[in-house]
């Protein structure tokens, strides 16, 4: 009896982590559609997608381990690499966008980086 109870709890946990993962991926895609400019969209992508993919991979790992007894190293590695690379890619995309002149949203209130980029442009032109 206790064995079935434990397996039910583990199944619930797997279902929950898969659901949370899909929910976060779904909300980050909604965020891409709703947010006004590149930078705010990147907020949604870098954060939502990371936890979403991590949740799905953890759920898949637990499922494979409990149902088939396989310890899947690839899934763990995938989770770690997504965690490491998502903020880096967000940083690079936003930096490249800024240097190529992508405008901030109209309602933005502050931009400290503009002066730096302007000076750099000037020194390159000279």
């Amino acid at each position: 009896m206790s064995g079935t109870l434990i397996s039910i709890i583990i199944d619930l946990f797997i279902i929950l982590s898969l659901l949370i993962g899909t929910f976060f991926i779904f909300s980050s895609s909604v965020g891409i559609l709703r947010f006004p400019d590149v930078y705010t969209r990147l907020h949604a992508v870098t954060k939502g997608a990371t936890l979403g993919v991590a949740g799905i991979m953890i759920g898949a790992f637990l499922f494979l381990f409990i149902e088939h007894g396989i310890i899947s190293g690839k899934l763990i590695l995938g989770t770690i690499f997504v965690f490491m690379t998502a903020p880096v890619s967000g940083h690079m995309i936003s930096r490249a966008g800024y240097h190529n002149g992508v405008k901030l949203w109209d309602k933005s209130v502050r931009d400290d980086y503009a002066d730096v980029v302007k000076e750099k442009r000037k020194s390159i032109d000279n």
Partner: protein
Amino acid sequence: MNFQIVINIVIALMWMFLSESYTFTTFLVGYIIGIILLYVLRRFIPDAFYLNRVLKVIKLLLLFNKELILSNIDIVKLVYKPKLDVQPGIFALPTELKSNWEITMLANLISLTPGTLSIAVSEDYSKIYIHAMDIPDVVKSINDIKESFEKAIMEVTR
């Protein structure tokens, strides 16, 4: 620190030869015995006990995960808000960290905190430019966050 890891691996290998079983499990048992020996003899070995630093790395990773989950909840709240009434913008955050590795860690951690995204690092590594989702809200809290991150990173690297 490297010296201690070498000693630890040598102890593990010796344990494998002594128990005459050459499997990963025996190596692991030997490694744990090595850790216990190093901990008991830590006063006679140069440098601090190296697991202290490993513990701090684990602490930093936990901090990383906590911030990630918090920021996710934050962004989901914003996504499903009917009207987007935020004031985004870019501000400069001065930092005391010096090396490439430390700056990378800080920039990544900041990218994963609620409402912030690091955009660029200044030429002399003294400032990080951050895009914030809601400037008045973020500027208030960023200083505590930055200090706790910098402390955690410095404990690992210095």
